[in-house]
């Protein structure tokens, strides 16, 4: 029973981090129709922001605020310099952002070296839950993800800005004719998505070994979450991350992490094949 509870908490923890990455990805994909292959590297940069701030003598909590802000800036720069030039060539957005991911990863290797960095746990306590001690920091991550995801849902479904963004997702030319500045909306979207990825990287840094390969480890599950859940709505992202993160954690608690990855990816591919619009998507 206790083991089941711990596994469930671990799954929720993984899901929380994955949800932050996936939300950014799904907003960028839904609104701009851009597949951002560099999203994993934005996550990576978020984690390395923590390392950089730590080296400069700053506290972890400072880094937690600095990472999303810095990443939003980097996202804005990426959008302005590269992505906006290939909007009309859908496949080329994949290639261009893939190239950016190579550049970012290599820049990180040059600046910080190829080896893994450790970030000390800012909340080294354990919390008693049903007789088991559970790390407090993991609970903190869940709280952050819940808060941020909730704020994103409110932003998109309860504000004028969100209404305009959803209008652009539904019908870009129509939204543009109604006076919505789609150009500004694109910039905002990309920066917002990048900021979320940065936040995810920063909160996950103390739990993972921070190394230049960690980006792709989150990128693929995040993409599969979107494809499994459905790319049309934020709810699809929530469903997708729940399934992918839950399945990964459960399988890896029974066998190994490698088997979990292979099994979950394979099943996800089959689900995508059976439901090309995602599980929440309507059939066309």
């Amino acid at each position, binding site marked *: 029973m206790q083991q089941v509870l711990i596994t469930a908490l671990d799954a929720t923890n993984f899901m929380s981090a994955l949800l932050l990455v996936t939300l950014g990805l799904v907003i960028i994909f839904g609104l701009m129709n851009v597949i951002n292959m560099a999203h994993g590297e934005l996550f990576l940069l978020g984690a390395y922001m923590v390392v950089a701030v730590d080296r400069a003598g700053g506290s972890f909590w400072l880094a937690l605020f600095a990472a999303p802000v810095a990443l939003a800036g980097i996202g804005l720069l990426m959008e302005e310099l590269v992505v906006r030039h290939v909007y009309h060539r859908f496949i080329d957005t994949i290639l261009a952002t893939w190239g950016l991911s*190579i550049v970012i990863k290599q820049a990180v290797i040059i600046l910080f070296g190829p080896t893994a960095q450790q970030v000390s746990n800012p909340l080294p306590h354990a919390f008693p839950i049903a007789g088991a001690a559970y790390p407090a920091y993991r609970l903190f991550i869940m709280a952050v993800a819940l808060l941020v995801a909730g704020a994103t849902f409110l932003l998109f479904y309860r504000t004028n800005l969100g209404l305009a963004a959803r209008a652009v997702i539904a019908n870009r030319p129509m939204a543009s004719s109604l006076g919505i500045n789609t150009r500004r909306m694109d910039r905002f979207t990309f920066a917002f998505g990048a900021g979320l990825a940065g936040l995810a990287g920063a909160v996950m840094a103390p739990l993972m070994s921070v190394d230049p390969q960690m980006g792709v480890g989150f990128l693929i599950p995040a993409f599969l979450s979107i*494809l499994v859940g459905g790319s049309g709505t934020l709810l699809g992202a929530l469903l997708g991350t729940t399934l992918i993160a839950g399945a990964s954690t459960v399988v890896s608690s029974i066998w190994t992490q490698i088997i979990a990855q292979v099994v979950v990816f394979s099943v996800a591919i089959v689900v995508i094949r059976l439901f090309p619009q995602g599980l929440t998507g309507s059939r066309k």
Partner: protein
Amino acid sequence: MSSPRIGVATTIGVWVVLAAAPALLNEWRMSQLAQLVSYGIFAMSLSFVWGQTGLLCFGQAIFFGIGAYVMAMLTKGMLHGWPSGTGFGLLAASLVPGAVALAAGPLMFRGRGLSGAYFAIVTLAAAVIVERAASHWDWIGGFNGLLDVPPLRIAFGGRQVDLLDTVPVYYTLLAAAALVYAVLLSLERSPRGTVLRAIRDNETRTSYFGVDVARYKTLSFAVSGCVAGFSGALFATQFGFVSPALIGVPLSTEVLIWTALGGREVLLAAFLGALLVRSVESVLSGALGNYWLLALGALFVLTVVLFPAGLFGRVLALPLPKRMRQG
């Protein structure tokens, strides 16, 4: 727009230079070049499926790797009861990946098939799976791979002779490249090739013409898989060593870069892209170290944004087949 006749002249020129290379380069450079030729064939396989059919495959190294492993296991005699000759090895190393692609094609393209972006992501995930599986599968050497893959053997006066000298090896590979080029080019220029490009440019419209899009995509994917496997097999004989690094994401990414930089829509441009990137890398990566990949990535982004046709795509583009030229 340059005259299409220039394309014919430059294409012939490239093959002449490649044929004359042994007279121009020293022994060591020749052996390097021979290895690059197998990468060049690999790039042509991607150019066919991506540049012609519009299927952006992020897992092309799966087929290259399968070909390399099949070749290694056959010629090392690990599979009892199967012939261990070079010829059979090359045949099997082409057919097995082709069959894999043929089996995977209908799963991905039939019915409400995967659209362009989903295909890219699914192939990327597949490359991760296959790489993981190969590094943990002890029968095929696990993480360490398989060592001591024999070189190419040819029947010579009733005996089997190992092909070890640089120049014969180079010419064998160049002949293989020319063969692949001829086959793929004739497919491209046939009426079926025109259908492939129609699918690339507008899938919906092509299907309204009554074309079985899924079937064409599957066949193109299978042909590309065959060629990639063949190049992997050739690579294994030269390198003498296969490992999970040949089957996963990094090599799939590299071949995408070569093909995009060279020119995705022109076979020979993709081929030269592989040769150029790899030879520049061998010269510069020592001096530039980690900055090499940074520069390559930046160049790749620039090419995608500014020159989607690639560095050589324009100059090597051949004129349209005669039946498609207007009066």
